[in-house]
């Protein structure tokens, strides 16, 4: 028996002795099952949380009308970027990175290049967010509860989802109710969340575009004095969210 073999036997004896004496024990199968269960639970919670945040961001931009501002010139685009809920977006990005990192513990996770895995996670979470918004009225119900102070914990973020942060920026969104020679009457998205009010819009030297018709959704930029909007710019807008009264 050479030195190497002697040393090897010593290692084997050492390990077996530890096993025999009970100082070295194997973790039971249920320990690993519990670990996998907790791991999957954690990923599921992160996924649900991220899908919720994703759907809330979509609800928020749709509800406040900020996304549709992108089509309203450079100022509208910059305004839209300014009003975007970046903090929630950042929190969601962190959750997506965490979910991707956790997924790399599984075989399919580390076998897939990081960029595909990341894209997969982003697409899955965004689709889940869109699905929540399209199929359910979850956020609108939560938003209503928040207005009545019946929503603890997350009530604040709903209360801040104001229907028209654009008011302070002198940009208004609404639907045309009547057309006269130099003015319009429109149902304008109110400063108060989720409501609309009827306003008269006067065009200062501007001509109303020929193709304008009753029922069109519009953006108007201008001064508001004594319940009248003095329009400086007018442009098409997407329709108001379905929840508006």
């Amino acid at each position: 028996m050479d030195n190497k073999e002697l040393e090897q036997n010593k290692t084997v004896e050492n390990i077996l002795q530890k096993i025999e004496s009970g100082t070295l024990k194997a973790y039971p199968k249920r320990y690993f099952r519990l670990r996998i269960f907790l791991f999957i639970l954690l990923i599921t919670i992160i996924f649900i949380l991220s899908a919720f945040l994703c759907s809330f961001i979509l609800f928020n931009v749709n509800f406040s009308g900020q996304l549709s501002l992108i089509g309203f010139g450079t100022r509208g685009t910059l305004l839209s970027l300014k009003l975007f809920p970046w903090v929630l977006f950042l929190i969601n990005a962190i959750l997506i990175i965490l979910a991707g990192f956790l997924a790399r513990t599984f075989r399919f996770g580390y076998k897939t290049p990081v960029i595909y895995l990341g894209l997969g996670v982003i697409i899955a979470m965004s689709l889940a967010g869109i699905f929540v918004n399209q199929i359910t009225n979850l956020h609108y119900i939560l938003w209503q509860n928040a207005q009545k102070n019946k929503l603890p914990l997350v009530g604040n973020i709903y209360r801040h989802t104001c229907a028209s942060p654009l008011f302070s920026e002198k940009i208004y969104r609404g639907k045309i109710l009547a057309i006269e020679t130099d003015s319009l009457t429109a149902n304008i998205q109110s400063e108060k969340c989720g409501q609309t009010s009827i306003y008269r819009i006067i065009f200062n030297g501007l001509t109303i575009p020929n193709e304008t018709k009753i029922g069109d959704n519009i953006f108007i930029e201008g001064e508001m004095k004594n319940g009248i909007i003095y329009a400086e710019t007018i442009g098409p807008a997407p329709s108001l969210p379905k929840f508006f009264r």
Partner: protein
Amino acid sequence: MENEENLTDEQIALSVQQGDKEKFGILVKRYDSKLSRYGKKFLSRKENIEDIVQDVFINTYQNIQSFDPALKFSPWIYRIAHNAFVNGLKKQSFLPTTYFDFDILLSHQIYEDPDEKERDQQELKKMIEVSLDTLDSKYKEIIILHYLEDFSYKEISDILKIPTGTVGVRIKRGKEILKEAYQEIEKQHGQ
């Protein structure tokens, strides 16, 4: 004894899972010198390799119930050894605590050619002996696993938990660096 020698690693691991603790000794015997050799190539300071290898076996036994006998045992134990040696490197301060490699970002189409490996093995043997320590640890470990420990790209992918394409890219890059380093050393010896 002859029977034991005919048993595969996976069969032995299954027996240990089912309560035949003595059989773990066979696995220790089979992997002791392999893991020590891997550790000696991997780590720069060689003095505590036996202790690290012993820790690898302790870890292996503790986690044996998490091993899936339908998969190969060797990549599984090498994964445990890899983690232990990386921790050893960190203690020796040769590696940052955390690092991110950009080569795991994208997909790389790599075809593993066994004939190429055989040709390379002849050519690289001397280069590995002379200039392996000049390689960055991420190339070094992959060259060791492929050319010295004889693991396939897929097995290395499981040991290192990186995409198979990245394994191919690192082997290719590692070989190039190794050749450059070897030529440099040869040149210096020639002068």
